[in-house]
C-alpha cells in the first residue's frame, strides 16, 4: 500500500516536473527542474527494478547533463547572476507541441500493442549461463546483442567528432574563470573525490560481470571526475588533438571491432566469442570501452580535443 502510494506520488511528480520544465519561462529554473526530473527518473528506474539503467541515468542523465546544461547557461548569461535569461515565445511552439503530442500518442499506442516482455526476458535468463557473465544486462549488451552496443559506441565517437567539427580547431578553451580553483576547499574536494571516482569506476567495471554496472556506468563516473578536474583547472583542454587523445577516444571501438572480427579468422561468426574465453574478452572490451567513454564524455564537456596538465 505504502509502496503503491509512493509510486503514484513519484509518477505524478515526474509529470508535473516535466510540465514545469517545458512551460518555465526562466531558463535557470527550467535547467534546475530538468535536473530534478533526472534525479526522480533515477528513483523510478530503481523502483522498476532496473538498477543498471538507474546507475546510467544518475551518472549521465542527472550528473553530466546537469553540468553541461549549467555550463551552457553560464555561457549564455556571461557569469552575471543578476542577468535573468527569459525564454521568448517562439511562433513554432504550438506546432512543436502538436508534434510532441503526436509522438507521445504514438508511443502510448505502440506500448499498448507490444507483447508482454516475459518471453524475451525468460530466454535471456535461461541462457545467461552461456554468455560468460552472470549479470543478464551485461550478457545482453556484450554478448546476445553485442552488435547494438558496438554501433552505440561508434555513435558516441561520431558525436565527439561532431563536437570537434563545430568547435573548430582554435576554439577558445578554458579561458573563463571557473570554479575558484585556488580555494583550499576545492583542493581538498578534488583530492578526495577524484581517487574515489576512480575506485567506483573500477568497481562498476568489475561488478558489471555479475551485478549492476558495466562500461557505460563506469565510464560516466570517471568522466564525472574528469569534469571536476577540468572545472578546477587541473586539466587544461587543448584545441588540437594529440595522438594519445585520439588513441584514448578510439581504443574502445578498436578493441571491440578486433574482438568482434577475431572469430572470422578461424571461420566463426562475427561477434561470436570463442568458447572458454568469453568472460575475459568481455572484460577486455568493457575495460577499453570505459576508457574511451570517459575520455570522450570529458572532452565533449570541455569542448577540447585533448588535455594537458592544468595550471594547478
Amino acid at each position, binding site marked *: 500500500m505504502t509502496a503503491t502510494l509512493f509510486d503514484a506520488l513519484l509518477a505524478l511528480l515526474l509529470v508535473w516536473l516535466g510540465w514545469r520544465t517545458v512551460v518555465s519561462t526562466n531558463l535557470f529554473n527550467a535547467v534546475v527542474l530538468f535536473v530534478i526530473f533526472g534525479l526522480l527518473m533515477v528513483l523510478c528506474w530503481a523502483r522498476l527494478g532496473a538498477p543498471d539503467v538507474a546507475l546510467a541515468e544518475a551518472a549521465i542523465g542527472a550528473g553530466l547533463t546537469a553540468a553541461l546544461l549549467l555550463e551552457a547557461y553560464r555561457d549564455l548569461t556571461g557569469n552575471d*547572476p543578476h542577468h535573468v535569461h527569459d525564454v521568448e515565445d517562439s511562433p513554432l511552439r504550438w506546432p512543436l507541441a502538436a508534434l510532441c503530442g503526436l509522438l507521445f500518442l504514438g508511443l502510448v499506442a505502440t506500448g499498448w500493442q507490444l507483447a508482454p516482455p516475459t518471453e524475451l526476458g525468460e530466454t535471456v535468463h535461461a541462457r545467461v549461463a552461456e554468455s560468460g557473465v552472470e549479470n543478464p544486462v551485461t550478457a545482453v549488451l556484450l554478448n546476445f546483442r553485442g552488435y547494438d552496443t558496438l554501433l552505440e559506441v561508434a555513435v558516441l565517437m561520431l558525436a565527439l567528432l561532431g563536437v570537434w567539427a563545430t568547435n573548430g580547431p582554435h576554439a577558445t578553451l578554458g579561458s573563463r574563470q571557473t570554479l*575558484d580553483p585556488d*580555494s583550499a*576547499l*576545492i583542493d*581538498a*574536494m578534488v583530492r*578526495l*573525490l577524484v581517487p*574515489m571516482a576512480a575506485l567506483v569506476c573500477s568497481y562498476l567495471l568489475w561488478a558489471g560481470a555479475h551485478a549492476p554496472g558495466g562500461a557505460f556506468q563506469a565510464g560516466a563516473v570517471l568522466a564525472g571526475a574528469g569534469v571536476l578536474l577540468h572545472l578546477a583547472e587541473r586539466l587544461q583542454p587543448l584545441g588540437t588533438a594529440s595522438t594519445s587523445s585520439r588513441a584514448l577516444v578510439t581504443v574502445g571501438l578498436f578493441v571491440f571491432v578486433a574482438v568482434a572480427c577475431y572469430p572470422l579468422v578461424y571461420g566463426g561468426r562475427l561477434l561470436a566469442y570463442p568458447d572458454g574465453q568469453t568472460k575475459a574478452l568481455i572484460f577486455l572490451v568493457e575495460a577499453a570501452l570505459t576508457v574511451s567513454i570517459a575520455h570522450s564524455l570529458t572532452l565533449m564537456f570541455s569542448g577540447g580535443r585533448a588535455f594537458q596538465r592544468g595550471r594547478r
Partner: protein
Amino acid sequence: MAVLDAFYHSLGWLWLVLGAGFFLAGTVALIRFPDVYSRLHALTKADNLGLGLICLGMAWELGWGRQSLKFLLIWLLALLAGSVSCHLVARFALRSGLGPDDPP
C-alpha cells in the same frame, strides 16, 4: 526480550523521523528565510544532520554490518559535497555584491 526488541526498533524509527524532521525544517528555512546566507546556513546544517540521522536509522534497522559502512560513507560524502558547494555559493554571492540583508 520482546520489550527490548521493541525499544530497539522504536529508537531506529526515532532516528528516521528526527532526520525527516530536520530535512523538513531545512526546507522550510530555505523557503522562508530572507537572504542567501541565512538560507545556506539553515539548509546545509539541517540537511547534513538530517541525512546523518536517516543513515543512522537505516543502518540501525537493517542490522549492523558491511552496509552500515556504506551508509557512513554516503553521509561523509554528502557532508563533503554540501560544505564545498555551500562555500562556493556563499563566496559567489559575496563577490557579486549580495549583502547579508539583500533578497536573493
